[in-house]
Every structure is written in C-alpha cells, then in structure tokens.
C-alpha cells in the first residue's frame, strides 16, 4: 500500500479563539481541520473544558509542510504573546495525497 508523507500540525489553545482561527485557516488556504474540546494544565493555569469561557480546544490540520510552516509562523506572530497556545508539528503518513 502506497503511503505519502504530510505534516500534522496540532494547536492547543483557548476556545474563544475558535472562530477567529478558522477564519485565519481559510485565508491561508487550509482545506480541512478537526477541532475537539480539550482540558489540561500549562503556563496559564488549569483550563477546564466544561465552560467555553475557560475551555481549550485542540486543532489538528494535516497539510503540505510549507503550508503547515506558514500557519505555525502566523500563530506565533499573532497569538503567542497574549493567548494560551502551544503547537507542534509531526510527519504523518496518508493514503490520499491529493486530499491534503
């Protein structure tokens, strides 16, 4: 079975940013993403998922490495300073390269 390598970009951040980030992704040309509610603890304290004001989300985007890089740069430049946000990149294998 032939497999193709793409980048998986995972962002964990504040739920209030969801709409704004979705607009950013669309402007950058992202074709698909997955968002789930999340909770955890980090540099900005414990974050619950049971209330949108305080909740976190986890965003996953599988795309070409160049696009993943552009998104990551945009996140760092615009949101790192004032928002609770982490992101990480990893290689993943996909079966349908044209989809990502």
């Amino acid at each position, binding site marked *: 079975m032939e497999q193709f390598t793409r980048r998986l970009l995972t962002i964990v951040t504040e739920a209030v940013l969801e709409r704004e980030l979705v607009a950013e992704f669309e402007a950058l040309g992202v074709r698909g993403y997955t968002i789930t509610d999340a909770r955890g603890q980090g540099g900005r*304290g414990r974050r619950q998922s049971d209330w949108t004001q305080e*909740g976190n989300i986890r965003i996953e985007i599988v795309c070409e490495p160049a696009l993943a890089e552009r998104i990551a740069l945009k996140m760092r430049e615009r949101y790192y300073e004032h928002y609770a946000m982490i992101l990480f990149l990893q290689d993943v294998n996909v079966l349908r390269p044209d989809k990502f």
Partner: protein
Amino acid sequence: MTPGPDSHTVAPPDSSPTVSRVLQLDPVIWFFVLGVAAGAARADLRLPAAIYEAVSTVLLLAIGLKGGVELARDTGGLPFAEFGGIMLLGFLLPLPAFALAHYVGRLERADAASLAAHYGSVSVGTFAVVIGYLGTRGIAFEARAPVWVVLLEVPAILAGIVLARGLSGDVRWSRLLRELFLGRSIVLLLGGLVIGWLAGPDGIGPLRPLFFDLFKGILALFLLEMGLIAAAQLPTLRRHGLFIVVFGVAVPLLFAVIGAALGRVLGLSAGGATVLATLAASASYIAAPAAIRTAVPEANPALSLTAALAITFPFNIVVGIPLYERLAVAFAG
C-alpha cells in the same frame, strides 16, 4: 419576612419560620451556595458543558417567551424614548468603571477598559434571578424588560474596546459587531420574545410546562453550575487582592443607584426599576469576556472574569437584588 409599614407585597400565605425564610433567601440561591461549596471543596461534581448550554438556552427562551406573551396582551406600543435612554446608559456606564479602575485602582489601561466593558454590560443569569425574585413575590414589572437586556448587552462592550484601543486601530469592527449581535443571549431572548408575541397567551399553552412551570427548577440547576464556575475562580481571586473585591461590590452598588434613578426618570414601575437597577449592577461574564479576549488580547482575562463571577454575581443575587428592590421602591416614592 416581617411586613413593615412600607411593605408593598402580599404576605406569604404560609409563614412558618423555615431556615430559608429566616435568612430571606430564595431557595434557588442555595443551589448557588451548594455549587460554590462543592467547587471549593473539590467535590466530585461537574455538570457536562452540554447541560450548562441546555439549561441556559431554556432560561433565555423562557424569559423571552414570557415577555413576548405579555407584550401580545398589551398593545400599548413600544416606548422608543425609554429604549434610547437605556441604550445610552449602556454606553455611559463603562466610563465611571474605567475611571475607578484606571485612576484609583491604578490598573493598566487595557485591564481597566476590560473591567469597564464587563461591568457596563449585563449578566443574563442575574436577570433570570431578579425575574424569579419578583415572580415569587408577585411584584409586576414591564413585560418588555428582556428588550432592556438586549439594549444593554452590547454598547458597554463597544465602549470598553474604544477605551482600550481608541477609535482607530486594528479592531475588526464588522466581524466583532456581527458576533456580538448574533451572540446566543441576544438571539434567544429576541427569538423568544417574537415567538411569545406571535403565539400570544393562548397559543403558548402547550409550551407552558417546560418554559414557565419548570423555570425555577431550571434556574436552580443553572445556579448550581454557576456556583461551580464561580468556585473555580477563587484561586485567581487570591492573586488579585483587595481592590478587585472592593471594586466588585462598590461598582454594582453605584450602578444600581444610577439604574434605579433612570427607572424613576423613565417612569418605570417599582418592579421595572428593580430590574433596571439589577441589570445596571450586573457584570457580564459571557458576551464581554469573549469579545474582549479577541479585541483587547493584552488585558488579563482572569481579572475581569473573576471580579464578575466570583464577587459581583454572588453579591448581586444574595445581597444586591433585595437591596435594589428597596432602592427602587424608595425612588418611586
């Protein structure tokens, strides 16, 4: 409850001295206390987010429907001067709050503006409690009161953003306005009002059991969850110290006087003036935090949210509302 010479309510039929009556607390308030206690003790109690959403949706629709049904009964038309006055109140309330936080509290501009937006805007939860409070005591108020909530929610948030940013700057106003006006409290309150108005007192019959008869029970569940959420703010409270506590109590008291006075000027009933005073005193913990977080990111979100949720909301529902009612009655003279 001892009916004094100035008492304007009918004495409750059953006057057995239950603990709740001795403390003069509406039983739903105890659910809030339970939530705070359970949260503070880290009890194994968490309502799923979907429950909070469902409960607050039913509350907002119920308040809207009730207002709409009453409006259908009364064909007096809508008093636009009153609506203008209340909206102006929404724009102006942030100014004293900002001045107090920035010049007296020595908070950064962004933090002071954020507090001003939260305290100028309104809390729908507090509104639900005052509606329940007046309902229990059989005190009438204007049916259009839910419209006041809608009028007061957005202007203060806009004023707060302008206080932080100025009129220029990098705020994406069109998107911000759309999100504010399409926020769930406005959509559900106005939607309920319109449906209630269209259906009228007879048409609403089948919906009565869920939206009207269960109102207090749903309010109790809502307050339980609010208690848990407020308790989660307590660690932040310790970090921000005395100023935020004083601010969270003093500003509602000041704003309640302004709200009650405006109610008097606008010729509202004592019940209506109580609602307006309570709305002025309340601080937003849903619309304002979300809007300020994206429009003024450098403001510390925990500061305003903690003040609104852990200080002002409990203060208003436990101590404030009975006080504002007396204030409104005194103003009505």
